[in-house]
């Protein structure tokens, strides 16, 4: 079961990479991810939320307790 849980996480990551690459090539009617982020990060709440999540990932894995007891 653990392998299945890990597999789903890997599948989500692969889906993200495919989406990014497809957008870069303007294929399937998708826009480049950078253009999407240019648009949504213009709003302060979105910008702060996404950057705080990014910061927390670093904090969680490098500084704080990573695994719950």
């Amino acid at each position, binding site marked *: *079961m*653990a392998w299945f*849980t*890990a597999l*789903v*996480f890997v599948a*989500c990551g692969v*889906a*993200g990479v495919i*989406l990014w690459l497809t*957008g870069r090539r303007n294929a399937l*009617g*998708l*826009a*480049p*991810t*950078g*253009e*999407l*982020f*240019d*648009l*949504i*990060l*213009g*709003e*302060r*709440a*979105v*910008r*702060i*939320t*996404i*950057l*705080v*999540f*990014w*910061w*927390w*990932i*670093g*904090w*969680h*894995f*490098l*500084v*704080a*307790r*990573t*695994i*719950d*007891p």
Partner: protein
Amino acid sequence: MSEKRSGSESIGTEAAGARVRSRAALGSLPWIAIVALTAAVQFVRAAPIDGAVFGIVAVALLADALGLVPRVGPIARPGRLPVLAGAVAACLLLALTPRHGIVDGIVLAGLGIVVIVASWSGVRAPERSAQQRAEQPAARSAVAIRRTAVLWAAVAVATCLWELTSFVLGRVLPEQKGQHPAISDLLDPALDQFWFRALFVVGWTALGLALLSRGGRR
């Protein structure tokens, strides 16, 4: 007559501005809810510092949406060299010093302050020459942007739901926690290896730089 017209024009402009602000405030509510929910999850997993960070950010965003925070102008865009030098220094310190150590804590706290200040005020867009503006590709269609946004949201929501499921199952069925590992459980042992930690630090820093270079006040 002209005074009357300019007065009514001014009222109209103010009303339009208020409508735009209230629309932006409404649009920020789902994001505030996400941050508040994350704060609650952090308190449940007994991580009070993490919970406090998300909680303070949620309150600050709510205050901003309600118009209680004074407006601040965008900050000047820093030069590439200082940003790159700072990023390289942060990478070296985070990769070479012991994980969960005091140096990592100081670097992350410093980065957190810089990122919050930069992202709260926004960064001024770079000046573009007439030639650069002319060479800029035409704006993407709203349909393509919406389709891309929906697909990215689906990936993000699926990842978060799966993580939350693993977290809840690990809590409810502690004897089966090993069967439902969260992302943290999977990555933690690998991050103790120097090369994986160095790769993680470089990838994480590059993502942060990419995010900071997008959006802002344009």
